[in-house]
């Protein structure tokens, strides 16, 4: 099954997939991604939306974007010092 995600969410889901796939080698890729999406949704970092064609898509929430922005700022600040 394919999951339509926005670019920001896709990047982090795939990063998480690479980290966790060795733990669930018996599962298919789509199952692992479904699990990651479900977890991200449970903590409020991903949400479902209806696409133009009426199918379901996934996107990063404002909460996730804010958190990533903070982390990026923190990383830039620590690199400067």
């Amino acid at each position, binding site marked *: *099954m394919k999951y339509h995600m926005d670019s920001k969410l896709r990047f982090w889901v795939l990063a998480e997939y690479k980290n966790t796939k060795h733990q669930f080698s018996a599962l298919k890729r789509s199952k692992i991604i*479904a699990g990651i*999406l479900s977890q991200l949704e*449970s903590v409020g970092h991903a949400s*479902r939306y*209806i696409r*133009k064609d009426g199918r*379901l898509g996934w996107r990063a*929430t404002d909460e996730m974007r804010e958190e990533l922005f903070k982390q990026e700022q923190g990383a830039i600040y620590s690199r400067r010092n």
Partner: protein
Amino acid sequence: MQVFDFKPKMDYTHFCGVACSDAAINEETERLRDLWQKVQVSRDRDAIYEYLRAAYELVLCWKGENQEIQRSRRALKINGLAPSEEPEPFAAVIAASISPKKLDRRQLSKYSRALRYAASRQCRPRDLKRFIQDRRGGLNACAAKYSRRLGRQ
């Protein structure tokens, strides 16, 4: 020879493959609650459309998976409200995200009817404000049109 016509009990045509946990439903209602609080603080008279759009989109998502009744019941339950057998999804989502003390029944009914009218006209979430405000004469007019359609005055 008898041919069995297999019909599964569940309809998987709209199944998206990701289960919606209680925590996820809670997060969605929390997000709506935050939006409602922003609307209350804002002095912009059109701020309510942001909230309505989010509620509308959420129910359409659930509808897309054929789960709107079940999930709206769960949303009510999670937020400590007593769900009916078959709650109206728009009303349930609004009631779950706003404290009943802060929103009276008439206002809740008005928002729910306006959103149902928009859904019956297959309005897209991003066009909701334009649909209600510019094309249909506002929230009250939309709610009245939906009531008229049901045969109520």
